[in-house]
């Protein structure tokens, strides 16, 4: 997030898109809802599903799935046409404005309506509301990124914010909501194939030399493979050994049967987790880790806030922390290292990572700090890009609308879109083992528009089968107008109806994010015998 949660309620207008916030980021939803109910903030919701948040919206737009660039460009065009752009900001802080102007010019309200289904008048209302607010913030999540055009979608979002000068001040910004408690931190720490901690490129000679010196070894300068690329490489036999810590790709990655095949081909699969997950069942060696309440460490939340988490209980049996295991393993392989505790690990990391340089366990004991925090006196950064962008001037990136990779056709007439529900989390390995949550919702469903259901002769709760070109799953129908006609929604929490057997592994060429939000499926009633 460019801004912090503290200034969320200062926004006069919040534009939420591609985030079912009440179910995925409930406490941020709580902040938004109360900001709206107190009368200080107006809300625009843009989502194909009529999510609960729409109830709080002054304007609700319902685009067809996968048409984000079209409505975002359309809004930019309207803002320009109505003279609502922030010319001073564009002039002093940005470049390539002319290119943006040219690119969005084709996105007339008529065309946008045709592509997205959003009525002209509604788009205009939203554009006016967003652009005329003294400060307006955009919040988005995977509904924007999990597309083959994910990177383009994000660029189109950023264009809108720059066009209206809604960057670098309180109550503004471009704010992606991160899904897992430390997905931000894992990225910050360089658990990515192309960067060291703090996003220092592995291909950068200076950065590499710094890490080589600190770690005392030569380091490879070619970026490595992403998760899905690793799976493909494993299937080809190029990746021979994998070490998977605390993740469950069999359920989380698209096209599960392909993932299982790839993992089965490995010479060596090591899985480290707290439960015997679907992925761990395929492993050659399973190492028992500890739960987060059983260890000391830090996590970085969606607003870049680094916080300490304390050990509440002793771990069971012979389990060992990930930290302990990795260090032991390094030593056995022949790379000697030791740390007296996680604080020392952070010390080493901070000494190599400018954006975390001023952060230490000692300081965090007094409260969280938002990076960048370049030195021990620095109090952290609440708002990014206040005076200038990381690269100096902010560049407009004109983008064009491109259709999703797999559209419905005669054989597979429905769009399947996936996500989470409030009461469960990810693959369910934790929530389905927490009694009250598991008892409350014990299995999944496919959410179908009642009209579609009627046409197909499917009743509430009826067993149905969803099939795509890649596989099929059985589940039960939940009739709800939350899903528009032609769209079905499923969560991926339930192994026995693993929706990722259906999803399309086609991915965004830059972000390498799979298109979970759109795959073509058909729906058949299952006759109960």
């Amino acid at each position, binding site marked *: 997030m460019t801004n912090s*949660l503290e200034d969320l309620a200062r926004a006069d207008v919040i534009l939420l898109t591609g985030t079912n916030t*009440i179910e995925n980021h*409930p406490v*941020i939803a*709580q902040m938004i*809802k109360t900001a709206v*109910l107190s009368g200080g903030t107006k809300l625009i919701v843009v989502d194909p599903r009529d999510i609960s948040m729409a109830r709080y919206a002054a304007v609700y737009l319902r685009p067809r799935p996968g048409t984000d660039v079209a409505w975002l460009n359309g809004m930019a065009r309207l803002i320009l046409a109505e003279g609502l752009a922030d010319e001073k900001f564009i002039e002093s802080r940005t470049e390539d404005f002319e290119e943006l102007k040219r690119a969005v010019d084709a996105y007339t309200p008529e065309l946008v309506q045709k592509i997205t289904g959003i009525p002209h008048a509604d788009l205009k209302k939203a554009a006016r509301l967003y652009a005329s607010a003294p400060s307006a913030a955009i919040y988005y999540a995977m509904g924007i990124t999990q597309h083959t055009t994910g990177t383009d979608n994000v660029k189109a979002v950023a264009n809108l914010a720059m066009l209206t000068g809604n960057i670098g001040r309180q109550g503004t910004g471009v704010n992606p909501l991160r899904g*897992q*408690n*430390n*997905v*931000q*931190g*894992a*990225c910050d*720490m360089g*658990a990515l*194939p*192309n960067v060291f*901690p703090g996003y220092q490129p592995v291909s950068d000679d200076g950065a590499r030399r710094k890490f080589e010196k600190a770690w005392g070894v030569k*380091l*490879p300068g*070619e*970026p490595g493979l*992403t998760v899905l690329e690793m799976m493909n*490489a494993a299937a080809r036999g190029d*990746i*021979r*050994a994998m070490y998977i*810590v*605390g993740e469950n790709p069999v359920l989380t990655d698209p096209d599960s049967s392909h993932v299982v095949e790839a993992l089965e081909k490995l010479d*060596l699969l090591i899985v480290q987790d707290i*439960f*015997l997950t679907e992925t761990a069942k395929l492993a050659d060696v399973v190492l028992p880790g500890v*739960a*987060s*309440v059983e260890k000391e*460490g830090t996590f970085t*939340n*969606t607003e870049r806030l680094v916080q*300490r*988490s304390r050990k*509440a209980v002793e771990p*069971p*049996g012979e*389990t060992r*922390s*990930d930290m302990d295991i*990795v*260090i032991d393993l390094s030593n*056995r392989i*022949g790379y000697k290292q030791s740390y007296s505790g996680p604080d020392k690990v*952070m010390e080493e990391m901070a000494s190599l990572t400018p954006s975390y340089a001023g952060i230490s366990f000692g300081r965090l004991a007094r409260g969280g700090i938002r990076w960048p925090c370049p030195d021990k006196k620095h109090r952290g950064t609440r708002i990014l890009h206040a005076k200038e962008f990381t690269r100096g001037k902010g560049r407009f990136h004109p983008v064009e609308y491109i259709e999703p990779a797999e559209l419905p056709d005669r054989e597979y007439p429905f769009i399947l879109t996936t996500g989470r529900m409030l009461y*469960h*989390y990810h693959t369910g390995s*934790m929530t389905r*083992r*927490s009694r009250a*949550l598991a008892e*409350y919702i014990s299995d999944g469903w496919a959410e179908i528009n009642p009209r579609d259901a009627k046409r197909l002769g499917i009743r509430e709760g009826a067993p149905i089968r969803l099939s795509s070109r890649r596989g099929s799953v059985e589940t039960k129908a939940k009739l709800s107008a939350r899903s528009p006609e032609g769209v079905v929604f499923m969560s991926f929490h339930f192994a026995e109806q693993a929706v990722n057997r259906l999803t399309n592994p086609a991915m965004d060429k830059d972000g390498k994010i799979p298109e979970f939000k759109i795959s073509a499926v058909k729906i058949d009633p299952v006759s109960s015998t």
Partner: protein
Amino acid sequence: MAGISIKVNGRSVSAYPGTSVLEAARKIGIEIPTLCHHPELAPTGYCGVCVVEDLGSGRLITACDTPADHGMDISTDSPRVTEARRRILSLILSDHPETCVICEKGNACRLRELSSNLGLAFTSAQRLGHLRGVVDANPFIHRDLSKCIGCQLCVRACREIQGAEAVEFTWTGLKGRPLVTGDQEMSGSACELCGLCVSLCPVGALIEKPTAHTGVEEQSVSVICPYCGVGCTLSVRVRDNEVIGVQAGVPGSVNGPSLCVKGRYGLGYVQHGERLTKPLVREGDELVEASWDEALDKVAEGFKKTMKTHGTDSVGILASAKATNEENYLLQKFARAVIGTNNVDHCARL
């Protein structure tokens, strides 16, 4: 801004205009008892327990929703105040079931605390019949509305803090009780089962089911929630090395008094019987228990062999969006420095 000065129990205090008598008194360390007051909610004066006397005018006023005014001479414990407070509490008690012995709220009950501070006993109140019942509609929240004292903290919190507007107060007088929108079961309403209302209920009318009958904690430890990226702080209640519950409200936390249903009620997995406790090593079709030495040697040998025969880029490592920063740092260091590959990623995109 010009301050307003008043006297509380003979001591002077000055406050900004708009400050309530309650807050003004708190500034000099004088606590006025309250039942329906919460610092994050607009004051209402519903319960009347915060009654004080303005000695100048002789008026009895509720301290939580009366702004301090020039020249006020407040007594928080004059005989009239004590008498009024006792009367108010007796009335509440007269409609409260005498189930304290088995009530899950136990000594955390504000009504019990206030009553005993004022020397009130149940038996001194004339009993009234209970007109409200028990609602037990979901695995999270047990509602025994016979114990409801009508303070409306739940209704106000759900609207003003949670923004869900799932509870409203219906009927009046003795039949008054909090309903969940349209009197549906909680699960069918706008209720998000966040548990905020339960955490604020001053009596045993709203009780957390997952943690009921687990007793009192030995200590509370601040843990960052293991679920989504909001980064809420869970104050984890621990007893006998077990998690017995979760509370919000850790000062300086992102979430203040709020949590969601997963953070508040979703730590059960930690003690689940299926936790892996020993390393497992594959023997044919089966995974069998092994010692750490056996397992780690097997892993180390396996890596070395793969690196030697197929090169370092034949190894791939998935770090974790659930692991700590320190662990992720070590994992990418392991990939790069120990193995010698940049094939390291995690499920950021999934």
